[in-house]
């Protein structure tokens, strides 16, 4: 595999992206100069058409959200965000998203470890299983979780319409992110370094902490950022599962939807602007991480 223009193709997110529907900008480095030329008239026209479509589809609508949010001025913006029901929804969403991200840091790393270092029959199946949450339509994901954790659960639990349902739904939809960011990095770690550490008397735990973990940290951080971003924006899988009860299981996206249905577009846009800003921040974080990995990696 050849690397271009001295830029290391960071393993971050490459797999996650191909897996179905991951987010982020981390996986791509553009070549600096060597293969790139300046625009010709034809490519300039192409760029113009592409930018026009991109603006009509993405940039203008997203800008409209921010402008709509500022329609009533700062006081209206804050009032919309400070209404007790919205505040409760934001608190639940952010709280559960943080919790799920922390859980994913551990389970995601463990799953990636098993997929790379362990060998057993059926491992290929697990590779597909990891990506199912990304590929499954979110409404079906809700139905899927309901079948095991809902009223007719064979486990005898019923977590439908409780905050646990929100946690489960977030956990399900964010499963692949850390696995898919950590896995390629783990594959590239040379076993010689670990063997050297072991021959010098390091215990398994010390080897993991001092040798492996430092090189995994950027990947874990990107995966965590993606997990968090996906969790706070989740909607579809909660529709059937969480019941959307105000003050109890209502998340930010549902709040936006009920504002839209009540024709309160400014309030809807205010809550949406929070999610949009988090998405932008996550994209910037990922860009910074991948640049750093490219420099020192």
């Amino acid at each position, binding site marked *: 595999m050849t690397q*271009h223009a001295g830029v290391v*193709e960071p393993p971050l997110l490459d797999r996650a*992206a*191909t897996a*179905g*529907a*991951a987010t*982020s*900008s981390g*996986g791509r*480095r*553009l070549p600096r100069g060597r*293969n*790139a030329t300046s*625009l010709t008239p*034809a*490519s300039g026209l*192409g*760029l113009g058409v592409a*930018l026009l479509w991109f603006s009509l*589809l*993405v940039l*203008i*609508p997203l800008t*409209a*959200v921010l402008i709509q949010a500022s329609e009533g001025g700062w006081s209206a913006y804050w009032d919309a965000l400070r209404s007790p029901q919205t505040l409760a929804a934001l608190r639940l969403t952010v709280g559960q998203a943080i919790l799920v991200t922390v859980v994913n840091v551990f389970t995601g790393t*463990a*799953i990636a470890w098993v997929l790379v270092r362990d060998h057993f029959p059926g491992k290929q199946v*697990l590779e*597909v299983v990891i*990506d*199912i949450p990304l*590929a*499954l*339509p*979110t*409404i*079906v994901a809700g*139905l*899927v979780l309901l*079948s*095991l954790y809902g009223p007719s659960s064979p486990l005898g639990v019923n977590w439908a319409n409780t905050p646990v349902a929100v946690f489960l739904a977030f956990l399900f939809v964010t499963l692949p992110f850390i696995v898919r960011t950590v896995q*390629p990095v783990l*594959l590239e770690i040379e076993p010689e370094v670990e063997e050297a550490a072991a021959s010098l008397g390091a215990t*398994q735990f010390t080897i993991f902490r001092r040798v492996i973990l430092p090189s995994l940290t950027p990947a874990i951080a990107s995966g965590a950022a993606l997990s968090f*971003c996906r969790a*706070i924006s989740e909607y*579809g899988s909660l529709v*059937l599962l969480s019941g959307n009860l105000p003050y109890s299981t209502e998340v930010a*996206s549902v709040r*936006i*939807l009920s504002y*839209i249905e009540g024709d309160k*577009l400014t309030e809807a846009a205010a809550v949406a602007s929070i*999610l*949009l800003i988090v*998405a*932008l921040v996550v*994209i*910037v974080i990922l860009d910074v991480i991948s640049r750093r990995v490219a420099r020192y990696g």
Partner: protein
Amino acid sequence: MADTAVSRSASRWALRVLVVGYLSLLVIWPVTLVARETFAHGLAPVIDALRQPEVIFAFQLTLSAAFWAVVINTIFGVGISLLLVRYTFPGRRTLNALVDLPLAVSPVVVGLALVLVYSGRTGWLGGSLEQAGLQVIYAPPGIILATAFVSMPLVIREIVPVLQEIGTEQEQAASSLGASGLQTFARITLPAIRWALLYGVVLSLARSLGEFGAVKIVSGGVAMRTQTATLLVEERYQQFGVENSIIAYTAAFILALIAVLALVVVTCFRPDKETPR
């Protein structure tokens, strides 16, 4: 040494069991339960459900919206990938980061954003479009827009790394021998990216067929008019009666089947990145 070997294999087993158990509880078991629930009353009710006009309509609408979204994303994706990789222009880095934005934004925000611009009543552009005879929101064009929005980056993400890897030598050779831009693309570039393009298209298609939140807001979800397959699942599941629930499960099962098939296709046929080609 024997002790550490034993403890190593014990911890390996423990981790293996833990991971398999976690994935079984979170994914494998629940997914198989949905399949079982779908066929709980046998095959006949499932086939009956598939003959319902609402179901047929919903899948037809979903397929045609997904088709157009994928066509748009493929053309746009190939074009913008070539521009990002092969050319320099001011704002290239920003554009490179921004094309990923649609995957990071909540579907509900996507829906709201499109309504704010394209709604015939209050939208920035929607009013003029409606006067020109094109209704976007609460109509199929809105569904296509929402679907194209959420699946936009998937083709780009597949093609860009391949374009970077193949470099420009062959393309330059072709054009120095007198090939036109179009000939170079058709004879050199397209064959080199065809697998990546195929994966991108399969992933876009899977994502497009399953979109729910954004489509729900822009379409209104009226049965036999703007109700897609995912919206049908929601509506029927919330209605009472065995028949409705079988319809919901059948539609969900088909959507899940398509998603898993797409995954298997991508997993099996992707040239392995770890092994040198």
